[in-house]
């Protein structure tokens, strides 16, 4: 674990405010594996863009809610982002983080042939949370997410890719790895354990990590 912090280059004072996860083909299964490692009192919010069929109608979110411990929500516009909850982007909407700590939705055109798009979420997360966000890219047959990972890296945040050797569709994590914007490459379960560890650390560090307003 230590290597992860050392890579940040400034010792142990990093705080964590949020996790953003992107998945496409094969991503749903990886997401379940990952989130199954977390307890219901995980101290950070988790925002998820999984590419969905346009007629999903909330089915993906409901299915995920049945299988993982943290509360899963398909949010409406302006819903407040709270710790311990998983927010899944609704089909046909882009999902972003607003600086006020709320969810924003839009029906702007597709990005990377996708709506929701992972890049759109990650870029907004990088802007709102800067170095305090962790972005995770999972299985998919798309290059969506690579530019978003680049933005998170540029803002000093952490970036993790599912190991392409494990991913059902390796293209998406591989694309981010090839772009040299990924810090850690791990199987989905190991990513879950890593996040669990970050969460425990954050809990121990006390409540100011729960303040979602960026940059104080």
């Amino acid at each position: 674990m230590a290597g992860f912090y050392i890579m940040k280059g400034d010792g142990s004072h990093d705080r964590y405010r949020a996790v953003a996860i992107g998945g496409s083909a094969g991503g749903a299964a990886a997401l379940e594996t990952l989130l199954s490692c977390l307890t219901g009192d995980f101290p950070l919010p988790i925002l998820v863009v999984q590419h969905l069929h346009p007629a999903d109608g909330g089915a993906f979110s409901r299915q995920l809610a049945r299988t993982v411990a943290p509360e899963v929500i398909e949010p409406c516009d302006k819903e407040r982002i709270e710790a311990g909850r998983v927010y899944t982007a609704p089909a046909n909407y882009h999902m972003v983080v607003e600086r006020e700590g709320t969810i924003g939705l839009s029906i702007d055109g597709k990005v990377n042939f996708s709506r929701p798009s992972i890049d759109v979420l990650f870029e907004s997360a990088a802007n709102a949370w800067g170095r305090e966000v962790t972005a995770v890219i999972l299985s998919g047959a798309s290059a969506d997410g690579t530019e978003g990972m680049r933005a998170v890296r540029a803002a000093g945040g952490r970036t993790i890719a599912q190991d392409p050797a494990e991913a059902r569709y390796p293209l998406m994590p591989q694309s981010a790895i090839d772009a040299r914007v990924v810090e850690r490459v791990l199987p989905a379960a190991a990513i879950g354990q890593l996040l669990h560890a970050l969460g425990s650390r954050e809990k121990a560090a006390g409540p100011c990590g729960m303040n979602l307003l960026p940059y104080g």
Partner: protein
Amino acid sequence: MKPPQIENIEVDLLLEAIFRRYGYDFRSYARASIERRIRQFLADIGGESISQIIPKVLYDRDFFMQLARRFSISVTEMFRDPFVYRAVRETVAPMLRTWPHIKIWNAGCATGEEVYSLAIVLKEEGVFDRATVYATDFNDEALARAKEGIYEIDRLREASGNYQQAGGKSSLSAYYHARYDAVAMDSTLKQRIVFSNHNLVSDHVFGEMHLIFCRNVMIYFNRELQKRVLGLFTESLARGGFLCLGTKEDLRFTDFSGRYAVVDDRAKIYKKTVADG
């Protein structure tokens, strides 16, 4: 100061410049989407920073218009979310029948697909002939296309499944005339629709509406502006009038939930309960 904080200042300055120079007020739009559009515009023109384009925005109207087009993306489709139109058909239309004349406002009609979908449902439910439908948007280009009512045939073919799911009583093709690879909406649908420019940020109340349809417009606004617009709608609605929002816009996250009863939670249809003071 961190780069995002500097960018935040630049965006403020740009939006202020646009407002003071051209009168378009995007200062209260949802910030993350606006920023993304500005960044995209910058990338497309090969600009380096937002501050650098401010002088050009101030002095060159055409340049501003290019940018403004990015701010009013009018993405829309016919019979989007068919269950909403089914709810209008099954729940709202029977109530509309109780009024001798009805006024309907489609705010943020974009290129018109939504208002034609609504007109078709009202027609099939026998209330269109007693209705006046106001379709408004602040984007003149979109409004002109809405008035024309000419669409790509492929888009309508895609929509015909949704029309059926919305409880369509005929065939969508009964409402348009094909011309090569385009279709023109039937002129009887247009007869009761009044298209006009209306800006939700700065323009005023439209009187005594029985149904206001404003979907996926307020998601582009911040909470303050949403409050203004919901105030405008609440004032514009007749007692017992209906408000229909986008399926991911919920009155629970606004200050207005107390003034409406939920008619259909999934379709986001509300009924005004409290008369204006």
